[in-house]
């Protein structure tokens, strides 16, 4: 009997050919998982390093110096400053320049010698509750090992460690995640919105007519972006309301500033969407590009879940170009730390520059001719 290829196997052979011949999609489908594995692998670190430490040592003596040396010798703690008073601790925290403050009470060594409680206060920036607790744990371990060393030969080495978690005393993880989630949602929705709208215009053919008209490219782009801004703003308000009402995230800073900076961040997303659409040839590619270009970097590299300080050294500079990274600093600053323009002008300025650059590049790559 003559051999028959079954209809099914003929069909599968065809599908295989389609897959192998669509080089673009094939590349993405092979490389994307690889990239994800690599990035996730590196980002998924639970140990914390480079803990920026401030020491407040009103009366340095051999004990405090020894303890300080122990901290710095541990390898996880980086020295930021040694101060005589607690006055500078708060501003340093608000600026986000330190993760931990170790405050020795005056006459530390004397207390130790006399056997009375020698107090040391460990203050941790707990905006990120996971790292906050870990940093606390490391600090206590250092102190404990010092205590143990001195202990056996003496009695009553009493170091009383008090801990305080700043900005997030109850270690609500919502407080960690929610600013990051707002960033993620805003980015995704805005970039997706504009990239789909623009590429749909291209695919439908109406873009041709628009081009053969007095409309200049910048007008077309601005015209595509601004209406979505209203929508994005509505998303911002909803997200913030949800954060406040459902997750009880504190709002310690200025709501107005938060709304303005959120809208600024949304605009960056819109511009990114236009840029992606200008560079892709189909709606499908635009959507894939929008999702890959926003979700992945935002989730992994913005510090929303995995602290940037924990990322491998070569990855850290990469995070600078991710808008969400800066927005999360701003959002956490306003919501949890209650700080304002004075402390946040830098990340805000970065977002403004990003917006300008993206709009410029988008307008330029949006050629007034088809080819």
């Amino acid at each position, binding site marked *: 009997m003559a051999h028959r290829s079954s209809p099914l196997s003929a069909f599968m052979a065809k599908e295989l050919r389609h897959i192998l011949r669509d080089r673009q999609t094939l590349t993405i489908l092979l490389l994307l998982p690889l990239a994800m594995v690599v990035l996730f692998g590196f980002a998924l670190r639970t140990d914390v390093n480079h803990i920026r430490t401030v020491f407040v040592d009103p009366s340095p003596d051999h004990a405090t110096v020894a303890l300080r040396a122990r901290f710095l010798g541990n390898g996880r703690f980086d020295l930021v400053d040694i101060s005589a008073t607690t006055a500078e601790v708060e501003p340093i925290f608000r600026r986000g320049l330190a993760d931990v403050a170790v405050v020795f009470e005056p006459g530390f060594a004397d207390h130790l010698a006399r056997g009375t409680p020698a107090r040391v206060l460990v203050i941790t920036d707990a905006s990120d509750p996971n790292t906050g607790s870990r940093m606390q744990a490391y600090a206590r371990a250092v102190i404990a090992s010092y205590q143990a060393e001195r202990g056996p030969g003496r009695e009553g080495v009493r170091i009383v460690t008090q801990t305080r978690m700043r900005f997030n005393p109850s270690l609500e993880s919502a407080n960690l995640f929610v600013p990051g989630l707002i960033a993620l949602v805003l980015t995704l929705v805005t970039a997706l919105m504009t990239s789909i709208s623009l590429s749909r215009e291209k695919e439908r053919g*109406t873009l*041709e*007519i628009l081009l*053969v*008209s*007095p409309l200049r490219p910048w007008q077309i782009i601005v015209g595509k972006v601004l209406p979505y801004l209203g929508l994005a703003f509505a998303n911002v308000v909803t997200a913030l309301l949800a954060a406040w009402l459902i997750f009880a995230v504190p709002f310690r800073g200025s709501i107005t500033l938060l709304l303005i900076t959120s809208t600024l961040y949304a605009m960056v997303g819109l511009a990114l969407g236009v840029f992606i659409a200008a560079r892709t040839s189909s709606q499908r590619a635009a959507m894939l590009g929008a999702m890959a270009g926003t979700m992945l970097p935002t989730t992994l590299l913005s510090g929303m879940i995995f602290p940037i300080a924990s990322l491998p050294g070569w990855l850290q500079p990469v995070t600078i170009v991710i808008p969400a990274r800066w927005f999360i600093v701003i959002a956490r600053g306003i919501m949890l730390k209650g700080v304002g323009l004075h402390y946040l002008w830098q990340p805000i300025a970065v977002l403004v520059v990003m917006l300008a650059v993206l709009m410029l590049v988008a307008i330029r790559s949006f050629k007034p*001719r*088809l*080819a």
Partner: protein
Amino acid sequence: MNEASVPLEVRGLGKRFGDVVALDDVSFEVERSEIFGLVGPDGGGKTTLFRILTTLLLADSGSASVLGFDVVRDMWAIRERVGYMPGRFSLYPDLGVEENLRFFASVFGTTLEEGYDLIAPIYSQIEPFRDRRAGALSGGMKQKLALSCALVHRPDILFLDEPTTGVDAVSRREFWDLLDSLRESGLPIVVSTPYMDEASRCDRVALIQQGRILAIDDPGAIGRRFPNLLFSVRGGDRYAMLRALRDLPHSASVFPFGDELHYSDSRTGGDADAIAAEVRSFLRERGFAGAEVARIEPGIEDTFMALMGAPEAAAA
């Protein structure tokens, strides 16, 4: 627009896409109050030509001026003044009929009211549906809406790329009636079509195939370019007669044309009546008793087929 200049002047335009030659040394002119047709099958270069003339593409060689403006240097001046209907009725399906019109009017800095009298003959046919979503219109109505949108800003020249593709024969006729009335107002119209019968409604036609212009002439006269004597053959089984005629030693071409066959004889300078008689008796010998053979004037389609030579090869 420079009053003295010709509305459209094309000189030696050439364009390649990789290895494919889309346009090869294309030249022609279009006058005011003229319907100029670009006639030829898909892939002939018509759309590429339109895109160059509406400043959407840059040609590789040659030059063109629209309304006195150069397509390369004066891009924006041209874009403000042309009406363009690209293929496949590019409209916004989720906007209403009137909304589409108002949008395109405003993009050109004018209003529907200002352009109304120009588009009235067309728009009046779809005005009863002004609130309907454009996506819900039939093919013929979409085409009329697209034309209205191209005209509403009172352009000085009109480019229509295959406006009647995919539309039934009746709507096509109505569309060409509309073009006739537009022409009366002085508007030069450049229209492309793959349908040979529409070519006869143009003032002049350019036969274009594989990027090359085969001939430019008015439709009535284009038959002059046909190289041989042409005869119509009727009566009997067409398919069988077709095969028989191809056996004739002097047959240059035999093609079906509706209910008759067109036979062209390779003997130039031959006597038409003698040849007709010869063919008739040949067919009778083969069993086609009632065959009628008569000399006819070649039409546009006959001429196109003679000039195009062989159809494009499958592989380079």
